[in-house]
């Protein structure tokens, strides 16, 4: 059986065409085509959209809107998004980055989805054909495809360089699958104490999650070894790490505090 590819210029039409069971949105192909190649027979057809808005990066008054079809390579090619470059560069190798899209990354199951870990820490908003939602709500409901149309863009306050601390731990250098990915957006007060913190983790659940206990424990701390001890101790709270060929859940739990501590102190 061949798989039909339906191409629409309008986002709305593409969204409507996604309604039947088995029809999947085709972004860069790094998730959906891969699944079909691996024998996922539940996917019975592709829908894609060539709408220009999906390919656009807009930066207006400090707010960036990144179209869902924008690739990691395109993010890396946009100087205005420099604060996101370390995150985009963590995705795949150069070939995957030429194909993998921002929209697709939102759906990537662990151990993939490193870009989304960054977006979660940066409190992004996910825009869809049927409205918008905070990224956390979006991630919680992302499996229920009937509830929503296609994702069209993400928007976020452009992070200045250095605001986002980001670490992807891999066993293969320079590029490998994530053991654990950590993104921490920290704001410091005049006394160099943390006044706000948003911390997101990859591979510590089936999708990116926030580390809220550690966020709270960091408030008022200087980024020094003794001060962050409590935050490091609770970084694993509420996590349910995956086990895959790269690492077991136990291993991920063991190394998470070590890498979190290095990220804060580094």
């Amino acid at each position, binding site marked *: *059986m*061949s798989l039909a590819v339906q191409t629409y210029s309008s986002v709305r039409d593409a969204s409507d065409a996604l309604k039947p069971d088995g029809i999947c949105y085709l972004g860069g192909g790094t998730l959906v085509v891969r699944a079909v190649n*691996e*024998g996922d027979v539940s996917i019975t057809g592709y829908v894609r959209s060539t709408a220009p808005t999906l390919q656009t990066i807009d930066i207006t008054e400090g707010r960036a809107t990144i179209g869902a079809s924008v690739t990691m390579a395109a993010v890396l090619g946009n100087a205005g998004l420099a604060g996101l470059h370390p995150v985009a560069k963590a995705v795949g190798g150069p070939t995957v980055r030429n194909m993998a899209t921002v929209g697709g990354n939102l759906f990537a199951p662990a151990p993939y989805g490193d870009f989304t870990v960054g977006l979660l820490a940066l409190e992004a908003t996910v825009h869809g054909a049927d409205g918008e939602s905070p990224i956390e709500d979006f991630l919680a409901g992302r499996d229920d495809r009937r509830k929503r149309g296609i994702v069209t863009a993400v928007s976020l306050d452009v992070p200045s360089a250095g605001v986002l601390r980001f670490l992807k731990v891999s066993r293969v250098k320079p590029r490998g699958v994530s053991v654990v990915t950590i993104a921490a957006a920290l704001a410091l007060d005049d006394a160099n104490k943390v006044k706000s913190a948003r911390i997101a983790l990859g591979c510590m659940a089936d999708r990116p999650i926030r580390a809220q206990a550690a966020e709270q424990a960091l408030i008022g701390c200087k980024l020094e070894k003794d001060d962050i001890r409590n935050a490091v101790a609770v970084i694993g709270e509420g996590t349910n790490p995956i086990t895959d060929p790269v690492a077991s859940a136990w291993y991920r739990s063991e190394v998470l505090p070590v890498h979190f501590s290095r990220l804060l102190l580094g």
Partner: protein
Amino acid sequence: MELRKDYFSDERNDDLNEIGHSRTRSDTPGHVTGRTAYFADRTFPGLLHLKMMRSPHHHANIRSIDVSEAEKHPGVIRVLTAKDVPHNLYTILILIQVGPEDETVLADKKVSWKGEAVVAVLATSERAAQEGAAKVKVEYEVLPAVFDMEEALKPDAPLVNEHHPGNFYLYDSGDHRKVRFGDVEAGFAMADHILEQTYNSSPIEQAPLETTGCIVTPDGNDRFTCYTDTQAMFFTLDNASIILQMPGHKLHMVGGTVGGGFGGKVDVIVEPIAILAAKLTGRPVSFIYSREEEMQISSPRAAERIVIRDGVMNDGRLVARKVTGYTDAGAYSRHSPYGAQKGAAHYPGPYTVENVWIDTYCVYTNRTPSSAMRGFGVTIADFALEVQMDKLARLIGMDPLEFRFINAYRDGDMKAHRQPTEGAALIECMQEASRVADWPVADRFYEMSSRSREA
């Protein structure tokens, strides 16, 4: 590259014209232009694709197999089960009288590892074959499974393979291979120190970039051409001949450039069933592992457990070495009984030890059957032995390289398995390594030779 001709210079005429010079490999121009032909670089009209329905359980009895829905699926041409295979029970090394036959081509009564082949589906496209395979219904009765070798050897362990009572390979020497040399207990009694350590290794996948596979075409007159990336053409020919009960001259095996193998393509897995499929459908058949199958289904290097007990003197002499080695064959033999036997002969390592005792076991568990990978049977052994040598050197406060010089084997030394040493070059390799790595040792070690012992 530096060519050191001064070692063993009297053993040859110095008229080597090629060694030390670069010559273009004859195959690389084809590699860089994409013209090198691998087995899958061909298409045939009417090609069928074979997908295997595999066991989702580590250990289970098969209660029933229902292929009626799969057979009706659009694009599906034929479905094969155990009863279609003329000689369904085989083992690769039966060719050299290493039996018993212990593995089914397609499982009939029981599956003994997760991923074991049960039903083959042939269809006009890969997709249709995948869809057809998804419609095969197999009812299982799940059995307790065993994954640890020492657990598997216990009397009350689940029986992995009915052809191997006790979950071990029965050699002519009994439940293990033995090497006995000198008096190991006397050696331990005289030793200044005894060190016993256990080393464990996991299975290792060879992960060739080209996955295992073959394409078979029917040539008329009940003859078949099989384009394959096997590393073992004659094993494949002869085993296919046995499994299919067809004389070898009906089977034309075509090899060629293999996209990496590293031992992972030494078993005979895809060819017999693909030839059978071509025979029963009269059409060309392609059976190529997906990457997931290559990683999970093809035989990896065996897991091993190695217990080494050494007696050493303060002056650095190793006086006793006792090794118990376990090789995890997984559910079926394949090449593992041979690997475990190789280990037995290898274990004293490149060292002369006067009192040696070796036992090696080939054990069956409900893991993926293991087989060959680059130096199987000895690679993990060498890892364990050399880590042990470093630990022993540390124990007696000696430089680890000097410790190896003291114990290195020399020409004429009797090895533990009673083969006299010839052509040893360990001393000279270590001398050169010491210079290149800038790891100096005492002068007397640079005076040593593999040919003779100093007075």
